């Protein structure tokens, strides 16, 4: 990891904190987290065995079991984590199993994930989630040929013979009967 750029980054180490944004994930005691506090700016590579919480600004490579970017946090660079939750701002390249996003995704960002959740809050006037120019690759790649074949099969499965009673004879067509000119002899 590179040198911190501010004295505040001295707190950017694994340590227990009662001020975790989320409840403990196991046991009854507090969870150890790596915390980059608001006002802290970190450049370089950060590897942690604990969940990482970004309240400040991180620029560089990051890996760990999970990373949480709070409303005040900015994460820019590359991250390979199991879980990524961001309510702040992210930019760069992210690989994760589970991603939850709100906040902002900046330009030239790539997110690869098995699962992505972005919630739409229709009752609020402002946009909860802002995407810049970015790429999202989430879940198994959809297979167009397979989808089209399945849709066609749906059509074939739905084709059933029409009940004879439902098929009106030509003579029974009111319009035909009413307006047909008489046949003439040759």
């Amino acid at each position: 990891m590179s040198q911190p750029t501010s004295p505040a980054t001295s707190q950017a180490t694994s340590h227990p904190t009662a001020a975790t944004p989320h409840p403990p994930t196991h046991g009854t005691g507090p969870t150890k987290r790596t915390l980059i506090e608001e006002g802290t700016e970190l450049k370089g590579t950060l590897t942690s065995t604990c969940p990482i919480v970004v309240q400040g600004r991180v620029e560089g490579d990051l890996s760990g079991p999970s990373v949480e970017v709070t409303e005040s946090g900015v994460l820019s660079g590359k991250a390979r984590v199991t879980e990524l939750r961001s309510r702040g701002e992210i930019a760069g390249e992210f690989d994760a199993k589970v991603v939850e996003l709100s906040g902002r995704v900046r330009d030239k960002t790539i997110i690869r994930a098995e699962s992505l959740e972005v919630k739409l809050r229709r009752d609020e006037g402002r946009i909860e989630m802002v995407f810049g120019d970015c790429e999202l690759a989430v879940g198994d790649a959809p297979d167009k040929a397979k989808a089209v074949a399945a849709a066609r099969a749906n059509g074939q499965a739905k084709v059933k013979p029409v009940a004879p009673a439902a098929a009106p004879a030509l003579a029974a067509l009111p319009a035909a009967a009413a307006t047909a000119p008489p046949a003439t002899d040759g």
Partner: protein
Amino acid sequence: MAELTRDQVLQKLRKNEKLDRADLRGLDLSKMPMTGALLARADLEGANLETAVLRKANLKNANLREAYLAGCDLSEANLENADLEGAKLDRANLAGANLARANLEGASLTGANLSGAQLAFAQVSSANLTGADLRNAILTHANFEESTLGAVKAIEADLRAANLRGATLTKADLTGAKVAGLIGTGRPLGEVLVAWLDTSEAGDGSGRITNGEIPGLLSGLRGPMEATAPASRRYFGLGDVLKNATLDFEPGARVQIDSLFEKCIINLGADTELVVGEAGVLADCTISGAGSITVNGQFFERQSPGIVGPRELVVTKTGAVVASVVQNEALTRFAFERDSRLRLKILKSDAKGG
């Protein structure tokens, strides 16, 4: 037994003699030049007229049941009220022929040329017209019940008040057909090519539709959204296939697609709500406009960008989207549920800075 031999028929034709009401049953008249022949009410049941030339012949009220007319030239012939039940007319040239009120029940017309033909009130039930050319044909009040109309070219044909119940239309091209009063197939359409239809009573092109009413109109089936009837709702049912169509939905319309759309262009008005149902597949399609899009099914773009300017894009847990999305100028509101599958490239509109 026929009253005339092949040679006698030939001699009469050379002398321009009438053959009206002649008994020609079972005769071999194949390849015979019979242009303009006068055969009104003639009995040609079971006759062999393979590749015969009957151009402009008068066969009004003739009996041609089970006749063999494959490759026959009947262009501009008068077959009004003729009985062609079970006749073999494969690859026959019937362009411009008058088949009004003719009985073609069970006839085989594969690859036949019926362009511009008159078939008003004709009985064409259980007939096989696979690959037939019906361009500009008059088919008003004709009965096509249980007939096979696969791959027919019925471009700008007049199908007003025709009966298609039980017919198959797979790969049929009905673009520009006049369809007021049409009785639909009563079954999902399968793959059809329909860019637009004319629903006007007069068949004058004033009722042109290019949107979601097409499958329901041709099939006669109505989806759940139409069952509740608001005029601004459009429903494309399960099993329908729409290809190469351009669909324009008015502002505020509610549209649901449970069908297969291929190479379609969908234009959404402001606040139009488009829902791709779980069974819906939009392959090689483009969606434009400031509507709200919810994808429970699958969307695959034709070319980048496949989705332009939506107000909202929601992909649910059963949904999949492969596309570039150019955002609305006011920024698109996105929502993705867990388990949705995405290959998305999100781009800001030109109006927005980077």
